[in-house]
């Protein structure tokens, strides 16, 4: 019986040594990163256009520029023509650029069809 005890002890000791020696091989691998961790957005390096827009820009400024540029870059081209407004507003004429002569050879300035006429009788002296 003492032999059996010693034998069992040696067997257990051997198993223990074997298990402890292989412990490094059985270290659980680090968990795979979850998709959420991988998808953390990172700002791309500034494009030449962005650098030209603001060469002294801080990172925050780069983000602002990128935010401005991005909608244009992601615009999906379409074969459908953009509808053109049919009624374009007529620009108001600047009547200060309109001068001419009356039938009496006097110089006028403004809208010849204006509702009010102001005749200035003056001497330059």
């Amino acid at each position, binding site marked *: 019986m003492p032999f059996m005890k010693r034998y069992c002890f040696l067997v257990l000791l051997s198993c223990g040594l074997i298990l402890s020696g292989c412990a490094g091989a059985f270290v659980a691998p680090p968990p795979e990163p979850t998709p959420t961790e991988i998808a953390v957005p990172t700002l791309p390096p500034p494009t030449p256009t962005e650098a030209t827009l603001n060469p002294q820009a801080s990172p925050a400024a780069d983000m602002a520029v990128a935010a401005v540029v991005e909608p244009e870059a992601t615009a999906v081209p379409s074969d459908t023509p953009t509808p053109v407004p049919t009624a374009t507003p007529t620009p108001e*004429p600047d*009547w200060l650029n309109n001068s001419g002569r009356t039938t*009496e050879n*006097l110089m006028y300035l*403004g*809208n010849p069809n204006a509702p009010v006429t*102001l*005749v200035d009788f003056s*001497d330059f002296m």
Partner: protein
Amino acid sequence: MLGAEESIKETYVKTGQVLLIFAPVLNHNDRSLQTHQAAECAADQGRFWEFHNILFENQDSFWYGDIQATLKQLAADAGFDTAAFNVCLDEQRHLDMVQAQDQIRINAGIRGQPVFNINGDYIVGTQPFEVFQGVIDPKLATE
């Protein structure tokens, strides 16, 4: 005029509500004649209203000295074609026209200056812009 003229231009002429007409008054003989002819010489270069302003801004300098030399210098300073301007003034090219224009105010019975006819109503003398507004606005309101 000048004075209130810039405000009148900005408020009413620019927007097409008022047509501004300039009628010469020859109240000071040859000196008046020279200045109004100079304005017509400027009109030959398409710059009547610009030179009209320059003349009013410098009117104190027309009372003494060689007025033709003064007018030519003003035109040169403003970048006019001085050769054409000077010949126009030397030849008194627009003398008849200016005298005919002056006849209009004589026929209208106007003796002093400045006088302003606004759709038949008269303002006499240099007045602030508000006086012109008081005449022009009611006329625009009834249109």
